[in-house]
């Protein structure tokens, strides 16, 4: 670059007078940093204007400095001056330092009252929410436990009611049979005399109706069934097979007998036998007739 031409172009004069455009300003500052001769010319022009300004010197009113000292903010130096500069520093007097104290200590910004109160309020609210949540949770747990217990009790009561109702129906049926005129109660006793009163036959001599009430017969294997027999004129007559059912309800037998000497129960193969297996006779009971 031809620096001589650039210097003679007059742009440096415009620069020191402040009439250049921002772009030209950057250009001059950039080039003066690169070319010492441009920098030198610029400094000489600046110095000339400085000298012109110095020739205009006029002592300002004394109160302006005092006002400025009031208005401006001063601070202590952040870093110490380099030691090399120390010999040059010969302050004759040290002006009183303007101590600037922050309203609150800077290092303890977290202890400012507003900050502390805000923090405490936030923490308190958080704690309350936590406690309330735990309270609600425990309430819910209690409710669920109570509900489970109540359901269990309810189920138990329903079951008991059902059993009771079933027993009542059974008892009513038994009572109704017993109330009928001509009904005989025949207790069937075990043949081996070990346990008494295993079953009861309610036999109505007027209608021939036979009702069987099982008390405590042992449930037989699946391949076998109990069979009721009526002993008529010394001969056993089939009175029907039956199963042992839960609850021991009274069973009305399909066959009717207007005459019978005794009733007996034998254990037969499933479906019944035409003739009783006497060795398998479980219970027997005589009629009053």
């Amino acid at each position, binding site marked *: 670059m031809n620096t001589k031409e650039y210097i003679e172009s007059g742009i440096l004069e415009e620069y020191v007078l402040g009439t250049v455009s921002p772009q030209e300003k950057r250009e001059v500052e950039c080039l003066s940093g690169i070319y010492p001769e441009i920098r030198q010319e610029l400094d000489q022009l600046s110095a000339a204007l400085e000298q012109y*300004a110095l020739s205009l*010197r006029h002592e*300002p009113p004394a109160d302006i400095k005092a006002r400025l000292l009031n208005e401006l903010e001063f601070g202590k130096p952040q870093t110490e001056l380099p030691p090399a500069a120390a010999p040059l520093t010969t302050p004759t007097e040290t002006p009183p330092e303007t101590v600037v104290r922050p309203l609150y200590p800077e290092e303890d910004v977290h202890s400012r009252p507003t900050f502390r109160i805000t923090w405490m309020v936030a923490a308190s609210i958080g704690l309350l929410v936590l406690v309330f949540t735990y309270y609600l949770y425990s309430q819910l747990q209690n409710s669920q436990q109570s509900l489970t217990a109540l359901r269990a009790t309810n189920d138990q009561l329903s079951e008991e009611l059902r059993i009771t109702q079933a027993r009542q129906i059974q008892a009513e049926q038994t009572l109704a049979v017993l109330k009928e005129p001509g009904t005989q109660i025949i207790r069937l006793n075990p043949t081996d005399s070990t346990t008494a009163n295993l079953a009861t036959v309610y036999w109505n001599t007027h209608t021939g109706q036979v009702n069987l009430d099982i008390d405590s017969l042992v449930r037989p294997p699946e391949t076998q069934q109990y069979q009721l027999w009526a002993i008529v004129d010394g001969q056993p007559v089939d009175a029907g097979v039956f199963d042992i059912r839960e609850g021991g309800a009274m069973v009305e037998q399909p066959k009717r007998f207007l005459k019978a000497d005794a009733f007996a129960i034998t254990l037969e193969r499933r479906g019944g036998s035409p003739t009783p297996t006497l060795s398998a006779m479980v219970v027997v009971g005589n009629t009053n007739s």
Partner: protein
Amino acid sequence: MKRSNLPFSEDILVKKLQEREEQAFHLLYDQYSPALYGVILKVVRDEETARDVLQDSFVKIWRNIPSYDSQKGRLFTWLLNIARNTAIDALRTRHSGQSIQRDIDIVDSVDLHQQTYQPSVETLDLPDKVNQLNPDRRQVIDLVYFSGYTHEEVAQKLNLPLGTVKTRVRSALQELKKLFGT
């Protein structure tokens, strides 16, 4: 007042100013305020306004001193530009309701006054080299530097071609440089 009057170098002063040392402010103010005030007075031509402008200028200097870079220019020149621009702004605000022609007339009338009434007590000790300057050349420097006119405005005011104005500005500064040459 010479630069050598400073108790330490300009670099150290700038560093201390950038660290906002009150002592450095005292030195800066004592050293430069008379020259800045003189320039401001020359621009605004009113003591009351000049006081305000000087105060505003130092507030701006104090606010902007951290961004001052000695690589980009001399400190005094930087200070002068702040004071000069603040003064020109104040002048424009004051005459904002008036036409530029009227403004120039005011400048002219006071210019004549100042040329006959010179120098002040403070400038007596300096050789009045400025007065050795060619009056035409001095006029363009004053208009551009102290009144903030663009070259086009100067050309319009002096009824000269723009090229002539530019040439005259350059030769005026070159002459000034020779006058105060070191």
